[in-house]
Structure formats: structure tokens, C-alpha cells
């Protein structure tokens, strides 16, 4: 499985700037910690194999192997990952209006899962302004307190590792594609020496095109606003093309072109836009403010969605076919661009090779990427 140790993790992920700071390796052990948006190693660890390396989404991510293990199907260059349905969704009457961003679908699903007893808690990304605080929420109030989008990478999975060490579970995790990928690595490469399967029962994935480097964004914004005055941020659907920053004094719009340099290298090799490895995926609904796109990927997800609707947490409507085609087109576009970028940087390989690689695909897909014929 090409699992190596923490020293190799540093060499393969940290040093080349591929660490996205998802928190997968953080607080699994005393060595890796997250601070100010960066994952750092406090002390040297010389283990030849470790969970930090095995579960990292940015090294030895064997997409073909993961797809076979978790989906029972090959990893395809097309589509947006397995799913049963795509629907339009928004929070129902049970969720207090104004307490969520966009459609509030994520908060609604988490509340429903908690109320149903499907999970005992949820790993969320809280924090005000630029701050990202990995959080274990166990009450509905704690869930809504975390509502709102973050546009910087966050070490959310550190909270999962902490909760697991304390014996919490079963848990839901609201994850970006990189975080959902790290959780898929966990399922595919369990670590039986350190106990049974983890406590993750439900993964609610988020759509993501790219994120922003937390320290980079902080220095960028510090030149324009008082950082302490930032209340929230949003990127409205195209064609707006801006990052809106709400401060206690008003709001500020920053053209996305001005902040593209703050996108971490790690995002440029990510093939996943819709959190394909999650149970459900949620994103914005272009052209319909106040609504989300909800991708229901498996039976568990379908059951939760239905229960959430029934309990009044969620409202769903049909999602137009044209919009779905547009979504698939965008997902394929990201996959194609970024597998190509990985290949160009020498980071793409095929399963079974010795040489360390960030990403692996089947030899067939590798050829497709090499020929530039990806969708």
C-alpha cells in the first residue's frame, strides 16, 4: 500500500508544499500539530510506517484502489462520483432562519442526523472571521453555531482525532473534498494495531474548487481591513467573481483574480470538486439563491435525506437536468485539469509502482491523462 513514515510525509507532502492542512495527521500522536493554518511536526519520529502517512490525502492517494475498495467500481475520468440522486435542497422550518449560509442544507442534515440518533456528534469547522476552529458539536445549538462557510483550508480532522481518542462516536464529519479523501484513506487503510474501525458514521462533503492559504489570506486582508472586525465571508455564485468580506463596519468585495495567488499548490492537484468519497455532498445552486445542490450518494444518505425532510429539517425539490449536466461538466473539468497538473509535476503514477507518488490511477486512466484526452 506504499505506506511510509512521518519523515517521508515531511519529504513528500510538507516540503514540496502539498500539505493542505486538513488535520488528518494532527493529534493522532504527539508529533503533528496545527497552528495558524499550518501543520507542523514538533519532534522527530522515526517510525517506518505511520497513520500520518497512510491517511494523508496528499500522498499515495491510489484513486483506483480506493474506488475498488469503497465503491466496488473503477475510478473514472468522467462523472462526479457514485450517486443515487441530485436534488435541490434547503433548510426546512425546523432550522431557524438567518442562522445559516446559502441554503442551510448542511446544518439541516447534521441536525437531522443528531436528532435521529444516527450520530452522537458532528465534527465541524467553527470559528469567527478568519479563525477556523475544528469543533465537536453534540447539540443542535452547537451545530448552528458553526454554520457559515470558510474559504481557507482548516485542520477539521484534528477534532475527529481528538474525539476518537476520547472514545466519542458515532460521529458525522462535514468535510471538504480533501478531508473526505483523508477519511476514505482511513477506510481503505485501517490500522488494526490501534483498534477497530473509527467512529465516523456519516460524511457530509462540500463542493470545493479551491481553498485559500490561511496565512496568505490573513496577510492579504490585514492590509485592507482590521482582521478582528471580520464576521463572515462568502463567494456568491458566478458571474459575481468576488470574495465578499462582512466586517463589523460594513462589507468589502475582493475580485477573485486578486486572490488566486493565495490558492495552495495542494489544491492544484486535487481531482475532486464534489467530495466524491462522502455519503452526501452539498454545494451552491447556481442561479437559485437560498438553495443548495444536494448529491445523495448511497442508501444511508438517502435514508437520512428522507428522514430530514419528514422531520421538517430539510426541504427538497427536483434538480433540473441541465444544471446537473453543468455540475458534471465542472467536476470533470477540475479532475481533468488537476490530474494533468499532477502529471506535469511528476506527482501522478500508477498503482503498484515503488516510486513515491502523490496520486495513483489505473494504467488506463494514466494513459488518458498523458494523452490529454481527459474529459
Amino acid at each position, binding site marked *: 500500500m506504499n505506506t511510509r513514515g512521518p519523515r517521508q510525509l515531511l519529504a513528500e507532502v510538507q516540503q514540496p508544499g502539498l500539505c493542505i492542512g486538513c488535520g488528518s495527521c494532527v493529534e493522532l500522536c504527539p508529533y503533528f500539530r496545527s*497552528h495558524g493554518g499550518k501543520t*507542523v*511536526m*514538533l519532534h522527530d519520529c522515526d517510525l517506518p510506517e*505511520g*497513520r500520518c502517512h497512510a491517511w494523508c490525502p496528499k500522498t499515495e492517494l491510489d484513486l483506483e484502489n480506493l474506488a475498488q475498495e469503497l465503491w466496488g467500481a473503477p475510478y473514472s475520468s468522467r462523472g462526479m462520483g457514485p450517486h443515487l440522486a441530485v436534488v435541490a435542497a434547503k433548510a426546512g422550518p425546523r432550522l431557524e432562519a438567518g442562522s445559516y449560509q446559502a441554503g442551510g442544507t448542511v446544518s439541516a442534515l447534521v441536525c437531522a442526523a443528531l436528532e435521529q440518533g444516527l450520530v452522537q456528534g458532528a465534527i465541524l469547522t467553527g470559528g469567527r472571521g478568519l479563525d477556523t476552529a475544528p469543533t465537536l458539536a453534540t447539540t443542535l445549538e452547537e451545530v448552528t453555531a458553526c454554520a457559515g462557510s470558510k474559504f481557507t483550508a482548516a485542520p477539521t480532522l484534528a477534532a475527529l482525532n481528538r474525539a476518537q481518542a476520547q472514545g466519542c462516536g458515532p460521529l458525522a464529519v462535514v468535510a471538504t473534498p480533501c478531508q473526505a479523501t483523508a477519511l476514505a484513506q482511513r477506510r481503505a487503510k485501517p490500522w488494526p494495531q490501534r483498534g477497530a474501525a473509527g467512529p465516523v458514521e456519516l460524511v457530509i462533503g462540500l463542493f470545493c474548487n479551491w481553498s485559500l492559504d490561511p496565512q496568505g489570506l490573513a496577510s492579504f486582508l490585514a492590509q485592507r481591513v482590521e482582521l478582528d472586525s471580520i464576521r463572515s465571508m462568502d463567494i456568491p455564485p458566478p458571474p459575481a467573481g468576488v470574495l465578499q468580506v462582512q466586517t463589523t463596519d460594513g462589507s468589502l468585495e475582493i475580485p477573485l483574480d486578486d486572490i488566486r495567488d493565495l490558492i495552495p499548490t495542494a489544491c492544484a492537484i486535487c481531482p475532486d470538486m464534489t467530495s466524491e468519497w462522502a455519503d452526501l455532498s452539498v454545494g451552491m445552486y447556481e442561479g437559485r439563491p437560498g438553495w443548495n445542490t444536494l448529491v445523495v450518494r448511497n442508501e444511508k444518505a438517502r435514508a437520512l435525506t428522507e428522514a430530514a425532510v419528514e422531520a421538517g429539517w430539510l426541504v427538497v425539490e427536483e434538480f433540473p437536468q441541465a444544471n446537473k449536466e453543468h455540475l458534471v461538466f465542472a467536476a470533470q473539468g477540475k479532475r481533468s485539469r488537476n490530474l494533468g497538473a499532477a502529471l506535469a509535476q511528476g506527482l501522478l503514477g500508477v498503482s503498484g509502482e515503488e516510486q513515491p507518488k502523490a496520486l495513483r490511477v489505473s494504467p488506463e486512466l494514466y494513459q488518458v491523462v498523458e494523452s490529454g484526452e481527459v474529459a
Partner: protein
Amino acid sequence: MQGQRRTMMGNQAITQGALEAGVRVAAGYPGTPSSEIIQNLAGAADEHGLYVEWSINEKVSLEVAAAASLAGLRSLCAMKQNGVNVASDFLLHLAGSGIRAGMVLVHCDDPGALSSVNEGESRHFARMLELPQLEPSDFQEAKDMTKWAFELSEEIGNVVMLRSVTRLSHASGGVVPGPIPQAQGKARFDHHGTLLDKGHGPVSSSPVTYKHRLQQEKLARAVELFEDSPFNSYVGPEAPELLVITSSICNLYVKEALALLGAADRVGVLKLGTTWPLPPKLLQRNLERCGQVLVVEEVIPFLEENVKIAAAEMAGEIGAKRFFGKRDGTIPAQGELNPDIVLGALASILDIAYQARPEEYDRLAQELSPQATQDRELAFCPGCPHRASFWSLKEALALDARDGFICGDIGCYSLAMRPTGFGMLKTLHAMGSGAGMASGFGQLGRFGMDQPVMAVSGDSTFYHAVIPALINAVHQKSPMSLVVLDNSGTAMTGFQPHPGTEANALGQSVPPVDIEAICRSLGAEVTVCDPFDLEATQAAALALLADQATAKVLILRQLCALSPQRKGAKPYEMRVDPEKCLGDQCGCNRLCTRVFGCPGLAWEKQSGKARIDEVICAGCGVCASVCPQGAIIKSERA
């Protein structure tokens, strides 16, 4: 006890000599190998009516001793080799002004740097500042020469320098003590005469050229006395093949080497006790004996160069000589000497086939030593607060992730250059230099340097030389952080009191000078933390690193593990729960024994678990916070 031969440590012999000379005031700053001199005199203070102090630094100690001399009391000042550098500015001026009652500066060099971060040569100060230099070569001489040094000082009216080395100060030998006189005489500083009246006028090195001439006349008078000094002696045949000129403890090495070689009848040894200025007549008499000269001394070729200058000046009378020594590589110019090294030099010059250490011996020693002795790194003691402090500083600098670093300073914590302190110190020089260098590094942001800088200082070092550096950093707005590792005593040299302690060298109660209040009064932001609280210390260190606007101070206060104030008590009973210990598994990988590295923690290979070594453990409880599993359990002792 008087008259009976006793075994004394070199520093004790020096103390005895000073007492026999009727010393009344002594001052110094602790520094190996000199510390026991002031310590012993403090112990004798009550009985003999002395005033003894541990001064804030060497310069002040010399000033304190000089004051006594000017008031008519014999005084002694003691320090280690580099202490003379600190005191040298005052010493230069004092040498110019001259003194009144006998005053001796004992300076103890540390060849091989056994307890130093330098092997500085302090004899050069005698030549540079034009003061007489004495060097005892054994324990009896250490006592006798110290006593005589006071007489010499009074005879010439200037300070006399007396140099010891580690192997004399810290080794022991036979000494016959003499009587100690009753303390007498009232202290009084007479200053009503004219500026030129050396006995009654104001004391200064000015008018300079006049006083300088007087100083040189004093030195010339010393040379006259040196010509007949019993501390210089020649042993050997009238016309030897080789003349060895040596001083200090090296005389013993030479004696031993000659005895082993059986070459005493071929080699003459001129042992010099008065090494600056050299007495020319004595030198000429001995240089005339033969054509070959070997100079045996430690560290820098001080004696060798002075002998060569003298030999050149008298070349018309004695002819050209062939010299062996450090300049031609016969004797190494670094590290300590020993009889083997001297033996090698003599054997090669005399063409005697003799191997000091046969190859077979070395081979056997290498073969056997791993079984006989365990290879050990120098390490912080079990329960040392410094280990905990550097652990938190290391984590804070790692979390900060800007490749920040720490400028080190002088004390036990200098060991943090090594693995025991996680290699955290990246510069290490003189007392107070950590803060001074950090003040400088802090200014380099304007040139693109984006690494944060910290300095560490012990409490004693803080008073000694850090305060000016901190004032500089505050005044120049240098964004550095000073971490004062306050273990409440001069731990490294044996818990001598310092201005922060509540008792002085004489055991009298004195007002402690508050480091925190000093720092605040300078305008520095100050945080105080217990280094055993790892979480709070890490947070405090991170806060320092985050604020890059000004100079800041973090005081990490926790009593040294060996402090007499602890009375050997263990605050906590420690144990490892083997059920919880993860050992070398992923999730821990022996963090406590492999990384934290307290000697009180042992790794049980067989069970794959950590264990507390109860004999060694000091019960500080810190490892309970280090363990990621909560497997190390601390319980309050009943």
C-alpha cells in the same frame, strides 16, 4: 592544625595562603575552576573577621577588592579565565593608578575547557596591562605563593596576578599550613594629599604618562625580586642536552615524563613561578647551559614567546638556540597537556624509542571500554526545569513555523546546544551575549530576515551581563524575546548566592533584587510562568513569538532540581500504567524515553513499555504532561 601537613585542594591552598597573608576582603564571581576560593573564604569569614562577597560580575568584584586595598586592607579577587576579560577594563586603569594594601587577583584558567566554552589564556593580561604574573606549580606553592603575592603587591604598590589551572585548583596535594594572623587595623581611605601623592592623594591612572612610568618602575622592581625568587628553580645536570622551561602544573607533567623516560640526567628543568616579566639574569644563566630549549606550557605560547624575545635580546651573550614548543608543533596549542604528551615531545627530541600509549593498549582499551562504560551524553539532571523549558520553547518555535531560533548563554542551560536540550541553542558565546545577539538579530527584519529570535539567560547571568543587552533591545525596539530561566541560584557552579537570592555569601539576609520588576521598569512586557506547566509555557512562548513589535521577557521560574532548598524532596510519586503505555506504536513511538529523554524514564525493551526509574526520578511530574496517553501517572506524595 598549623604546621601539620594536610591534603588540600589547590583552591583551598590558595585560600589558606590568603588567610595567612591576613586578607580582610575578598570578592569574586563564580566560575569553574575558581569558585571554591571565595566559597572557602566566605566559610572562614566569621572566624577571621573577613568581608567576603559574591559580586554581580567580575568587574564589580575587582572594584570591591580594590576599594579595600585603597582603604588599607589586604584584598583578594578570584575569577575564571574569561572573568578577567570582563574585569579587564577596570584592571587596566587600576594597574595605572596602583593600589595601597596588598591586592591579589587570582585567575583560574581552564585548559581543555572542561567547564567552559573557551580555553582563554588570561596570562596575556599581565603582559598587556603590565602587572606581575605568578604561577604556582603545586599545592604547597599555591599556598606559599598566594601569601607572598600580597607582600609583593605591597612592595611594588600594584595588583599581582596569580594564575591557577583546573588541575591545580581542583586536584589535591600536601600542604603545610602556617599561622593565620589576628585581624587588625581600621579601614580608612586617605585622599587629602596631592594627585601625585600615591600614599595619600586621590587615586587615578591620570596624569597618564606620569602614572604609566611609575607603573613600569613597579614592574621593574618586581623583576629585581623575581631574580632571586625561591619560586624559580633549576633541577638537572650542569650542562644538559636539553633545557625544559615550564611553569604551573606542567612542571609535574615534566617531572613524571622524565622519570618514566629515565632521562633526568640528560635534561635540565627550569621551573618558573614568576612568569611575567621574566627575570633576565636568571634566564641567561640557564639558557647558557645548552643549545636546545623546550618550553612546556598549556594553551597559548605565552612563556615560549617571552623566552624567545629574551633570548634574542641576549643572543650576543648566549648565542643562537634551537627552540621546541608550540610554535613548531612539538607541543599542541589546544587542550590540556598531560604526562603522555610531554613524554612524546621529550622522546622525539631526545630520540628515545618510547610510545606513551602502545597501539596494543589503545586497541584493547577500545575493545573493552564499551563493556565497561556506557557511552553517555552530557544531560540535564532528572527533574531539571531547563528540560521542561526547552521542551516548550521547542514546541512553540515548531508551531510558529518561521524557523525561529534561540541565542544561548552561559550556565547549565548551555547544554541545550546538545540533545538533552533538543539542540535548541543556535549561538553560544559569553555571559550576556545571547540577549545582545538577539537584540541584533531582531533588527535584521529590514533586510528581509523573517525568523523570530529568542534569547535565554539564567538568573545569575541576567544580573551579570544581560541587563545592558535587554536595555539595548528595549531602547532600539528590537523584536526579540528574552526567556529568563530562573532556577533561583547560581546552579552550575554550586548554588552561590546572587542578587536575586535572600542571603549573601556570608549567609546574612539581604534584599533580593527582583528580575521581573527590573524588566518591567525597563519597559519590557513581562510574563511569568512555571516551566513545569507545559501548556501555559508553550502558550506564553507562542504569544511572545506572535508579537513582533518590541522586546519582551518571559520568566520561567522553577527551583533547580538539585537546589538545597528542595531538601531532596520529591513532589510527586510517578508511575507508568503499562496498560495505557503505547510504547513504540504509532501514536507515541516512545516520546518520553526517545525524545523527552529525562534520565528518570527507562525503556523496557522486553515489555515494550516505559518505566519510571524510582532511584533517579526527581518526581517533578513533567513527564505526565508529556505522555500523549496519560499513561504516566503522578500522585501527590503523602
